[in-house]
């Protein structure tokens, strides 16, 4: 272990609210988005996409398109053959998992509206798009499997050749695993002599909706074929390109330049990337494709989309005794890169912070003829957190007790850490009491409860609701051995290299691939502290497989806790490599050297040498100890031993207008324990942004399909992304229980806000409406749904609940009746 002493408070970089290094370019428009890239002779692509959810392709006539001005080529699957590769699934969740081949271009059948059937190559993007209109495709429409529950019944098959829509059935049972008791016994006991909460919740389909549409450029003119892509995963993408096209991995370079957000939506090996790669190789010219927003919403993968059947058993005293989770998860048309792994990531989190003695989780993944689903911020864990946090509120309501009190009765106390859960995970650290106390204090919990009482008693048409979410999550993906035991196809390590330049600058190479997170700033702070060099002298390099040759990229809140720890270990190796050289130059014994604030000094003397001076001497290499290589550069690959468990208490107050159903956010407080904070400013941004994405699931967003399988929320006119006018300012703070599984003590923060906030908001809405007999409102809780929930419970008597049906009404144009402006197919108007 390297003796690195902590610099005095005030000079330490870790914990400082450094302004971001990234911003100088971004605020002046000096950016390198993939779509900005122009290369000599570059050609442009336009995709011809299926308007049908499920159809046989009977003919494709490319003649007219080929004759159009500026068109270089028009290709179909038949033209490209196997050279185009396939889209892979990296996580077959069971050995028996059924998965159709996922060709980048549909061969003879389309499986969702938006699937690519032909590609036009032209001199300009406009000419390509014009010519795409001229491609004549004849379809023979097939029945489409659209509704998740119906699809699970196999009445209509999404892929007739598979004979079923059921892809995989994945089970965890605490009695079988030896981590807890038998859930059926707990349920039986609660049924006779306790409390049983049985609920079914809908996790609606969401769209990641990153602001930068995806774009790909491939230049095949060098010895290495270079791909620039708006991706979160340049390294995984390079592997997939090589593995499925036969092009040697060493001949492929993937660059993720400036990437405009991802949220899981760019954690994918896309058909478009495969097609651009194939056409650049075929034509020997640089090729670019940039999607339109409509294409992005329609064909970029979606997230969530589950039905959750939940049974919670408890004693009459409020002690939880068992939890049973039965999920239906919509895969869409194909098993995507992570695919069924997304709900499985939630499997270990439904028990959350509570001491359930028995737990059962089962998930059935199901094909439908809709856009494929995959990771979206939180990936599996928001769904789990929503379910359990809603259930804990329901339990409290059933018992007639305060929901915070019931939570506290059941959560792991801070003395009990490390704690092995009923799902078999070991939570290393946490303090739910402290986070909750701080959140209550900021929120003014008791005062708001008093106001709620007043409004209820006076029959105020605007009711106040208070929502709670005491969440935890598992992140920092992930221990490779655990991933292996779950049949994931790759590991979860991360790589870093540190290069000491002769001029005193330090290059830090990371395999994590930032797309807005601020790695360049945060990693600079870590290295500045560790090596005792100025923050400004650290340069962080990433996102290019030739510069950062090893890596597993950015997702699952892993960059800091896995990638950051790799950086720390590489830095420690640099110090160890410098030590004998410094001793030699100082004519001292290695044992007499101490390293502090970037300087080696000989104990008990004034003699010393800065690390950067050692770097210069090593560069010159004139006077090194015998047998020592002339380099201080070092690399490290870190594989975590455990996941990372941030937690927090979120409190939300909403005002619900019982006459109109309008929900207004009033106060939102988040106290997150994310361990040691590297940069509080960056953390605040991650929390705020995460909160709004989770709140948006509760209130606004839903990918809606019509009866024929057309996405009707396929533009920003129809998919309700919140604006500044929809949201409020937040109050955030942190308590600190350092993580024990990385030396920084850090925990992931990228997904925390999104995971926590959705149930806080819905709990608040239901809390406001409980006196009216409402015990649920389906997400997104639109004014219409809230209003209907109120009217339904009025009509059917108290306790009838407020489940609403169907998708949210899309924004139809009143001038054309119910005919929407989107291009829709038969059945849409019924």
């Amino acid at each position, binding site marked *: 272990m390297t003796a690195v002493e902590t610099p005095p408070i005030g000079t330490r970089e870790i914990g400082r609210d450094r302004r971001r290094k990234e911003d100088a370019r971004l*605020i002046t428009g000096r950016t390198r988005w993939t779509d900005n890239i122009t290369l000599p002779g570059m050609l442009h692509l336009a995709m011809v996409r299926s308007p049908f959810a499920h159809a046989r392709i009977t003919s494709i006539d490319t003649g007219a398109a080929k004759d159009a001005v500026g068109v270089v080529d028009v290709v179909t699957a038949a033209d490209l053959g196997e050279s185009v590769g396939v889209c892979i699934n990296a996580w077959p969740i069971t050995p028996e998992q059924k998965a159709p081949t996922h060709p980048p271009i549909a061969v003879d059948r389309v499986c969702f509206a938006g699937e690519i059937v032909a590609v036009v190559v032209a001199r300009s993007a406009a000419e390509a798009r014009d010519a795409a209109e001229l491609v004549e495709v004849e379809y023979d429409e097939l029945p489409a499997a659209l509704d998740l529950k119906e699809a699970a019944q196999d009445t209509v098959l999404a892929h007739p050749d598979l004979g079923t829509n059921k892809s995989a059935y994945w089970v965890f049972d605490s009695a079988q695993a030896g981590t807890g008791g038998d859930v059926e016994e707990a349920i039986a006991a609660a049924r006779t002599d306790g409390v049983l909460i049985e609920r079914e919740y809908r996790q609606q389909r969401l769209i990641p909706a990153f*602001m930068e549409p995806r774009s790909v450029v491939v230049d095949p003119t060098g010895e290495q074929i270079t791909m620039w892509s708006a991706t979160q995963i340049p390294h995984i993408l390079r592997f997939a390109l090589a593995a499925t096209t036969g092009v040697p991995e060493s001949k492929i370079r993937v660059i993720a330049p400036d990437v405009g957000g991802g949220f899981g939506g760019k954690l994918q090996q896309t058909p478009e990337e495969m097609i651009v790669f194939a056409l650049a190789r075929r034509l020997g010219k640089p090729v670019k494709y940039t999607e339109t927003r409509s294409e992005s919403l329609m064909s970029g993968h979606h997230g969530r989309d589950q039905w959750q059947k939940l049974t919670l058993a408890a004693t009459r005293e409020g002690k939880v005794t068992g939890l049973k989770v039965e999920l239906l998860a919509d895969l869409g048309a194909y098993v995507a890169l992570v695919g069924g792994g997304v709900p499985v990531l939630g499997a270990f989190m439904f028990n959350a912070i509570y001491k359930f003695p028995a737990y059962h989780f089962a998930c059935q993944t199901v094909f439908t003829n809709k856009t494929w689903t995959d990771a979206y911020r939180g990936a599996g864990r928001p769904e789990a957190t929503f379910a359990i946090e809603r259930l804990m509120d329901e339990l409290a309501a059933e018992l007639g007790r305060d929901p915070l009190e019931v939570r506290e009765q059941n959560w792991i106390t801070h003395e009990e850490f490390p704690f092995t859960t009923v799902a078999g995970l070991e939570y290393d650290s946490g303090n739910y009491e402290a986070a909750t106390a701080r959140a209550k204090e900021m929120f003014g919990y008791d005062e708001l409860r008093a106001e709620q009482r007043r409004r209820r008693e006076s029959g105020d048409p605007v009711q106040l609701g208070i929502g709670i979410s005491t969440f935890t999550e598992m992140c920092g993906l992930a221990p490779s051995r655990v991933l292996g035991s779950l049949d994931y196809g790759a590991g979860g390590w991360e790589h870093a290299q540190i290069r000491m330049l002769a001029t005193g600058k330090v290059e830090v190479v990371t395999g994590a691939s930032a797309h*807005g997170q601020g790695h360049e700033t945060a990693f600079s702070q870590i290295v500045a502290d560790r090596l005792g060099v100025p923050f400004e002298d650290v340069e962080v390099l990433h996102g290019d497989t030739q510069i950062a040759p090893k890596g597993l990229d950015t997702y699952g809140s892993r960059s800091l806790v896995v990638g950051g720890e790799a950086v720390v270990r590489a830095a420690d190796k640099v110090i160890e490599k410098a030590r004998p050289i410094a001793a030699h130059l100082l004519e001292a014994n290695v044992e007499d050297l101490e390293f502090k604030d970037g300087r080696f000094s000989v104990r008990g003397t004034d003699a010393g040498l800065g690390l950067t001076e050692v770097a210069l001497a090593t560069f010159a290499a004139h006077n090194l100890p015998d047998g020592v290589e002339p380099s201080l550069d070092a690399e490290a690959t870190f594989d975590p031993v455990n996941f990372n468990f941030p937690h927090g208490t979120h409190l939300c107050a909403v005002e619900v207008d019982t006459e109109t159903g309008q929900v207004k956010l009033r106060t939102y407080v988040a106290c997150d324990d994310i361990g040691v904070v590297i940069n509080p400013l960056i953390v605040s941004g991650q929390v705020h942004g995460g909160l709004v994405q989770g709140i948006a699931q509760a209130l606004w967003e839903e990918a809606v399909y019509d009866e024929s399988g057309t996405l009707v929320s396929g533009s920003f006119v129809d998919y309700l992304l919140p604006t500044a006018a929809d949201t409020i300012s937040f109050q955030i703070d942190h308590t600190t229980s350092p993580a024990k599984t990385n030396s920084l003590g850090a925990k992931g923060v990228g997904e925390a806000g999104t995971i926590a906030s959705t149930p806080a908001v819905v709990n608040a809405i239901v809390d406001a409406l409980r006196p009216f007999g409402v015990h649920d409102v389906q997400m997104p809780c639109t004014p219409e749904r809230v209003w209907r929930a109120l009217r339904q419970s009025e009509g059917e008597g108290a306790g009838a609940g407020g489940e609403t049906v169907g998708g949210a009404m899309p924004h139809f144009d009143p001038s054309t009746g119910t005919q929407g402006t989107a291009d829709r197919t038969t059945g849409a108007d019924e």
Partner: protein
Amino acid sequence: MTRINLVVDGMRVADDVEPRMLLVQYLREKLGKTGTVIGCDTSNCGACTVHLDGQSVKSCNVLAVQADGHEVTTIEGLARDGQLHPVQEAFRECHGLQCGFCTPGMIMQTVDLLTTHPHPSEEEIRLGLEGNLCRCTGYHNIVRAVQYASGQLATAATPNGAAQEVTPA
């Protein structure tokens, strides 16, 4: 093709353009002003916001030919003589951006907003930026950036990462 003459970021330019060419396409493809970006097809996102004769417009909603004879300012022309515009500085100071894709549009819209409302309330800020979407920040720190740019915040960030508001005098 139609001949257009205009001034972009202080530079006089003239080109023959297709009548259907959008101003944003003209900026990006003909002038290489790639600081201005395209985020949607329906003029909802505001990522392409520029100034046309000093007023913010969504440049995906203006034809290049409509800019004939006018003056366009993009994010690339906002800093003068190596000095960042105060709004650019405020976005950095308050961490009003993460991935940065919406940022050029947000900054251009904010500059316009502060021209008409030099000391906007939080509500005026939120309504004034309603036409610009951001997926990263949750808008919290964008609002702070606008308050900071308009002199309504003493300091951008506290150790908790939350901004302190200045009590109005």
